[in-house]
Structure formats: structure tokens, C-alpha cells
């Protein structure tokens, strides 16, 4: 049976994240940093009660994944909350790590996920949504609306659109003042 959790409870849990989860990822076998992939695979085995599951997550692509890996580490802490125990097969979590978390990791300073109330809520809701768990006291629509309202990707898109619109406005106003635009409008005069 699905366990119940209020959103504030999970936010509180995320904000209690031990500082070790925010340490820099290890750069090699002998580095003192966090071995992120090992951590992720361990937490997935742990919450799915499948200690013998083979390594699920590997990394390809760009060399510097510091931001992505540090957010993965924070997620590992978040997923240690009991609400996620047995919330589905381990493999279901893989697209989250390689997809949505990757997308937002570079848009938000990692520490904010555990210090900023809204970012902690966003992370909580991303994880709950991925596990198809509805926070206690909400229904599916409210939960989806709330996540939508604080979605970093959407927020950044709006900011970018606003910035582009402002640039366009400035350019139109500059062109309106340009000599060429002022002259040519009188071609053929006005009927």
C-alpha cells in the first residue's frame, strides 16, 4: 500500500540533507569526493529492496557533470525518505536521473535545493510525481498544478521569453527611430 506523506514533511526531510551529500563528486577512483554513481546505484537498490540489482546507471556524454551529479546526490538523500521505499522497480528511476534532473541541475545552484523552500518543494514534487505518489491532503490536479507553478524549467523559459520579448521591443523601437524607416513610409503617399 502506498505510504502517505505531506509535502511539508518531505520538504523538511530534504532540507535536513547532510552536508556530505553536497560534497564535490569524485574525479577518479582515488579521489576523496563522493562517488556519485555508486551512491545512486546503492540508494536505488536500497529503496527497492533489491541488493543484488546490477549497476543501473552509467554516465556518458559531457565531461563536466558536477552540477548534475551534485543534484543526484541530493536526490539520493531525498529518496531515503520512507515514502519512496518500494515505490516501484529501481529501473523506473533511471529516466528521472538522466532526464529531468539533468535538465534542472544547471539552472539552479545545488545548495538551493536544500536551503530554498520553493526549490526543496520542487524537488519533493518532482520525486513524488515520478513515483506517482500524491501528497496527503492534495489530489492529482492540485499536485500537478502546484508542481507546474514552481517548475524551474518553465520559470526559466518564461524568463527567457520575457528577455527575448524585451530585446525585440528594443529593436523595434530602435528601428522606428531609424532614418530609413521614417522615410520610406511615405512611399506612394497615402490615398
Amino acid at each position, binding site marked *: 500500500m502506498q505510504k502517505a506523506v505531506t509535502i511539508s514533511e518531505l520538504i523538511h526531510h530534504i532540507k535536513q540533507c547532510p552536508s556530505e551529500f553536497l560534497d564535490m563528486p569524485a574525479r577518479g577512483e582515488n579521489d576523496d569526493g563522493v562517488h556519485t554513481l555508486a551512491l545512486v546505484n546503492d540508494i536505488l537498490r536500497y529503496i527497492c529492496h533489491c541488493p543484488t540489482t546490477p549497476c543501473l546507471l552509467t554516465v556518458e556524454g559531457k565531461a563536466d557533470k558536477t552540477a548534475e551529479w551534485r543534484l543526484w546526490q541530493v536526490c539520493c538523500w531525498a529518496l531515503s525518505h520512507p515514502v519512496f521505499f518500494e515505490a516501484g522497480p529501481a529501473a523506473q528511476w533511471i529516466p528521472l536521473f538522466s532526464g529531468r534532473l539533468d535538465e534542472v541541475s544547471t539552472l539552479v545552484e545545488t545548495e538551493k535545493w536544500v536551503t530554498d523552500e520553493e526549490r526543496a518543494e520542487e524537488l519533493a514534487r518532482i520525486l513524488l510525481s515520478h513515483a506517482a505518489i500524491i501528497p496527503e491532503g492534495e489530489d492529482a490536479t492540485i499536485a500537478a498544478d502546484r508542481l507546474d507553478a514552481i517548475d524551474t524549467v518553465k520559470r526559466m523559459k518564461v524568463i527567457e521569453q520575457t528577455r527575448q*520579448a524585451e530585446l*525585440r*521591443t528594443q*529593436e*523595434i*523601437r530602435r*528601428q*522606428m*527611430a*531609424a*532614418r*530609413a*524607416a*521614417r*522615410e*520610406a*513610409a*511615405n*512611399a*506612394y*503617399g*497615402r*490615398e
Partner: protein
Amino acid sequence: MNPVEGLTDRQRFPLIDDLRLLHRLRQDESAPRFNFASGDRLDGAGLEKVHEYRRSLDTQPFWLPGQLPAWMTTFLDWCQRQVPAYRDIGSCFQAIPTLRRPQIAARPWQYVAAEARLEDMLVFCTSGTTEAPMDVLADPVSQACWLPQLESILERDRIRFDREGQKVAICLVCDQKDTLTYASLSTWLGGAGVLKINLNPEEWSKPEDRCVYLERYNPEIITGDPFSLWSMARVAPRIRPKAMVSSAMTLHQGARQLLQQQFGCPVYDIYSLTECRMIAVSTEPARYRLIRPELYVEILSPDSDIAVPEGAVGEITVTGGNNPFLPLVRYRTGDFASLKYVDGHPCLCDLEGRSPVIFLRQNREFLNPIDISRALSKVALAGFTLHQREDLSLEFSAWGAELEARSLETTLKQLFGDAIPLQMTLSVESPPSPQKVKYTSEINEIEI
């Protein structure tokens, strides 16, 4: 901001190699003192679009009574995707709030489509005869489409441009204290000449040059507002235009007959707006036939965004057009008429509020209201009303902050004459009427 010259002739006419006519028109010994230069800036792609537009005028059907045009859904979808001001208009046409001129005047950039190329932008500042001046943005294609619109009107009467490079196709006639004047060419009309002249004798070396110049180039089509066309009738050049086109104000039947008799050609009265150019044409009193299937016209109640019953008078409201810098969605024109379908074709009837308001100077010469608006625009007025009584005396009411009675009086006396009686009322608060500028006169055409 006033227009300024900013292009070379090559930039003005990218597709016209032979500029001899242009030079001849400018350098003619009888030419007026042209004070401006202008060109259509049509390149190959632009010219092709004008051709497409011309074909669409012949082939695109008008909407049926009680129905929206077939293109409306696509157009609204395009507006939502392209135009910042229309992003949230939704797809239910009747639910879209109407748009008024001050909204566009305040933020013209919000109405520019994302796909519009800013290097193509043209800016036209309206004279603001009856409202505050406004910058209207356009591109060379939508600007040039005035000519196909005109051709579609003329061709119904089998009138066609010769499209010859060494002829003057169109002469825009003005009669104002001052206005922009220039000689130009039309790429669409095969390099034929386009003139804009001011009949004010001060613009010419000799007053008789007005006739000499017009007779020498004998323009195929003469256009102008009724004041200017009357003035031309008084100047009386011996020219035989193929047609005359009156716009800006209603051309009354008496004036139409006078012009037809004197110049021996049909006279068309066009209903047009700076914001979207031509809308309808009248060849008979009180009925204007819509000419553009891509410009939907509805008649709305002045108080709500609801259409009045067919045949009832309401505010003319337009949607569509082909200007990517100002696509219009439910734009209230400020003009009132009824819409009737005559043989299935939409026509505007009972068009109100466009009667020429005749002002006379102390010496009983015409004074174009445009000149009054121009002169008063230099004074910071929020709005004004001007009424001329039969005895030529004036009643002037203005409102705005920090009005200077002396400066306003000087301006009006310079326009009308020092001895004209003037009664002036100034106030800070504006009256409840939404109209910022209102002209009325007890003088009519018949008296003149």
C-alpha cells in the same frame, strides 16, 4: 517624430534601373519645390508577394452573411503564435475584446508579428486630424498593396494603368500650408511616376506652374481629400485623368458631379484608414462596397463588443489585413455605419462622421483641418474642440495641463487671420467625451 530622408534612390527603387523619369520629374523647370524623397523599396520577393496579393483580390471569396471568413481560424491561430498583444486572445472570435487606437498608439511594438523582418519596417505618423497622432508600422509589401487595391476598383470599370516607365501613373494632390511633397516611381506599375504635390502656391516658383506641371505629365489617376480635389478644380489644369479618387472624408454628390464634369472621368470615394489602408469604395451616394476579402468587417455596438443586427448602425470594426507589422483583430475604427449585403456582397451604408468640416480663413479661403491639427500639435493639448460659426467667428475649447492662452490665440490667429473673432475656453479637466479632437462648422459646401 517627423519623417526624414535616409535612403539613396537605388535603395528606394531596388528593381528599377531606369531613373530618368524620376530625375525629369524632380528637375522640371515647372516642378514644385519638392521637400522629400521616397520610394517603395520593393525587392524581387516583395514584388512577387504583391502579385500574389493582387491575384488573391480576384480569387478569394468574401464571407457570407452571418458567417466568419474561411481564413479566420488560421489567422487567429497565427496571431496568437506571432503577435505579443494577441497571445491570449483565444480562438472564439466573438469573445475577443475589441481594440482601440490608443492601445496601438501606446505600444505599437506589441502588434508586430515575430516573423516580421525589422529591416523592412516603415513608419508612418498619422496626421491626427481628429485624434492624437500615431505611428503606424508597415512593410513595403503591405504598403505597396494599396495599388492592387486601387486597380481592383478601377478594373470593374475597365480602367487600367498603362504601366509605362516614362508616364506619371498617380498624383496625390494636397492643399495644405505645408506637407511632404516628392516625386517617386512605382515598381508595381513598371517604373511609372508617382507624385505628391501641394497646391499651395507658396510651394511653387510661380502659381501658374501648378497647371503647367500637371498638364505636362497628365497623371492617369488623381487622388486626394475632397478639399484638395476642390482646390484642384479651382486651379483648373487642363488634364484628362482616367479617374479621380477621393478619400479621408466623404465626397458629397455635388462635389463628385463637379469633378466629373470638369475632368471628364469617374470619381471614386474611398473609405480607408491609415491603420489598414483601403476598406471600401463608393461610386454612388451612401453606399460603400467592401473591396478586400482578407479584411473582415463587422458592425459592433459602441458600448459592448457585440454585433448589432444586420442593417443597424454601429461602429465599423475590422479584422485581418496583410500587414505583419500591424495585423488587426477586432479593431474599432471610430467610424459608424451599417452593413448590408447587396447581391450577396457586403456594403457599408449610412457611413457617418466623415463629412468634410469646412473652415474658412478671414479672407474666405479654405483652411484644411489637417493644418489646424498640425499647428495645434505643437502646443501640449490633451484635446480640443473647434467650431466655426456662419459669421466665421470661432469657439475654441481646449483641455490639458499648463495651457497658455496667449500661445493658443497666436496659433489660431496665424491660421485664420488676426481679425477673426475668437472665444476661447481652457480647462485642466477633460470632458467626458472620448473624442480628443472635434471639429464642427456651420459653413457648408453649398454656401461656397
